[in-house]
């Protein structure tokens, strides 16, 4: 771990990469192998507990400064929310289906089982979305 970090720093010192690239590499390294926090020793890797959405925008169009957003949602909260959807009465689902079909989105919500959504939340751990634009950066990841 330290070896990789040192290599990145050496590359930076030699001018092979820019400071931004080095920062990104170190971030990626830290995300790949999060230091084993206490209580997460079970399994091969620590289970992430939070979904993070980070937005940094230096593009201050019309505003008097940059925009920053930092959201941290416990994955447990997502699971609990998903379980609540199983309480939606079937009549409501059929009405929603009819409206969706009318709007040109023929999705049958009655086919969406809570287990499917739970599986989706389970596999959120592996998601990393990194959008880099000049002036703004969006990251979605689990930690």
């Amino acid at each position, binding site marked *: 771990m330290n070896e990789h970090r040192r290599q990145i720093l050496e590359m930076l010192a030699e001018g092979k990469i820019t400071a931004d690239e080095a920062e990104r590499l170190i971030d990626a390294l830290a995300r790949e192998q999060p230091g084993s926090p206490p209580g997460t020793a079970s399994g091969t890797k620590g289970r992430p507990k939070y979904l993070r959405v980070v937005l940094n925008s230096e593009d201050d169009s019309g505003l008097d400064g940059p*925009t*920053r*957003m930092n959201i941290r949602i*416990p994955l447990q*909260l997502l699971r*609990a929310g998903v*379980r*609540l959807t199983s309480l939606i*009465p079937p009549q409501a689902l059929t009405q929603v289906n009819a409206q969706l079909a009318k709007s040109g989105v023929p999705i049958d919500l009655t086919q969406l089982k809570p287990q499917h959504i739970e599986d989706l939340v389970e596999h959120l751990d592996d998601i990393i979305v990194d959008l880099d634009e000049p002036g703004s950066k969006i990251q979605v990841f689990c930690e």
Partner: protein
Amino acid sequence: MIPQLVTVRHRRANGRWLRFYVPVLPVLLVLSPLLLLAVLGGLIACRIFRVSAPGALRGIGRLLWALPGSRFEIEEGRMAFLVSVR
């Protein structure tokens, strides 16, 4: 563990911070008569819409239990709004 402290911070355009620390348990105790009414209303609504009342209570309980650790921060220029649940 249910949330214990909700912190709300708001930075106004003039740069001044407004901070609210809401201790959840005492507030719940103070509002318990209203809460009881809300629960009763919820149970009646569940009966009307044929939703499982124990399931709904369990779901809301799970949501409450999962809230600690949530954090929501938005900064736009000099304005900022932060909510954190511990």
